[in-house]
């Protein structure tokens, strides 16, 4: 299972500060700082050192191949800052997914330190810390946006249902499903039950079983979201 979003934190603690002094083995406090220059900085628990540079090949539980990840990471024990450089990606979503995949591939940095006797590179420590502090000052933060499968229109007379075809992993409508082939957004009007026997007096809102119109998205051509298999959610609908 991929790690969830980092817990909400106040403005008083930077990512580096959160990392210092923690000793956790599987990156529960994973946080990603993603500058636009293509480098990704991973902050995690204290003592994190990636076990080497260059390409790593691994496969996640979900079957995502993360062999494109080039990890250039040496992190100081004192801060737990890891610099990860990622190359050869099609989009940012895959960058992010690859980083998560690499982290979930069983890399055990603490163990690697002991086994390989890595020496902390102090110059890299300083530069990494500087960059981290430069980018890692959250002003405010909150949980990731939830995945939704339906949304009503502004005047509540229409509803949009999100229908996803199964991806290669066979999953649909889950956070873990990151490769849905197609997403259809179907606009359905409200059912009014006029001139029918047994007219409903329920205060509930009913929706038709047919769509007046729809939008079909090709997820291969769109930027994907981190948390949801659909690129852009939620929707606002004006009727």
């Amino acid at each position, binding site marked *: 299972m991929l790690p969830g979003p980092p817990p909400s934190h106040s403005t008083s603690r930077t990512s580096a500060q959160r990392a210092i002094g923690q000793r956790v083995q599987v990156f529960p406090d994973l946080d990603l700082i993603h500058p636009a220059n293509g480098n990704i900085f991973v902050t995690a628990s204290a003592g994190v050192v990636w076990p080497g540079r260059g390409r790593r090949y691994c496969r996640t539980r979900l079957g995502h191949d993360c062999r494109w990840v080039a990890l250039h990471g040496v992190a100081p024990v004192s801060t737990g800052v890891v610099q990860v450089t990622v190359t050869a990606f099609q989009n940012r*979503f895959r960058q992010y997914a690859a980083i998560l995949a690499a982290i979930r591939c069983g890399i055990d940095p603490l163990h690697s330190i002991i086994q390989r006797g890595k020496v902390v590179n102090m110059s890299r420590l300083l530069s990494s810390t500087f960059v981290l502090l430069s980018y890692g000052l959250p002003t405010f933060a909150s949980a990731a946006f939830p995945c939704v499968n339906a949304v009503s229109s502004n005047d509540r007379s229409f509803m949009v249902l999100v229908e996803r075809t199964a991806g290669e992993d066979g999953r649909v409508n889950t956070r873990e499903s990151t490769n849905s082939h197609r997403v259809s957004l179907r606009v359905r009007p409200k059912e009014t039950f006029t001139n029918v026997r047994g007219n409903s007096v329920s205060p509930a809102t009913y929706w038709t079983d047919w769509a007046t119109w729809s939008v079909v998205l090709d997820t291969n051509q769109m930027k994907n979201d981190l948390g949801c298999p659909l690129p852009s959610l939620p929707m606002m609908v004006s009727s």
Partner: protein
Amino acid sequence: MILLQTGPTFADDPAVLRIYRRRDHPGDPIRGVPDHGAFVRDIALADLWPVERTKAMTSWWSGAPEWFEGGKFEFSPDSRLLIVTTRWRNVIQINLETGSLTAR
């Protein structure tokens, strides 16, 4: 229908809002031709945010606020305009039929 981008967002992203509308000529229900709607326009972050704020947006991290956080989305009474208010209180009107933008 407006799709709202969530998650990682950068100033050079082609769209943070993607607007579709129902076609003027609906699909052919007899022959089963669906009405897949019409794409109107992609709205980039630079179209909505102040220039200085866009330039300053050089990073994204997992705890970063969504680009629309602290702002507001409203529809005009006739549902022809989407009125976007950013967290810095600048207001942009988007014509949902044409995709044209007007700063207010």
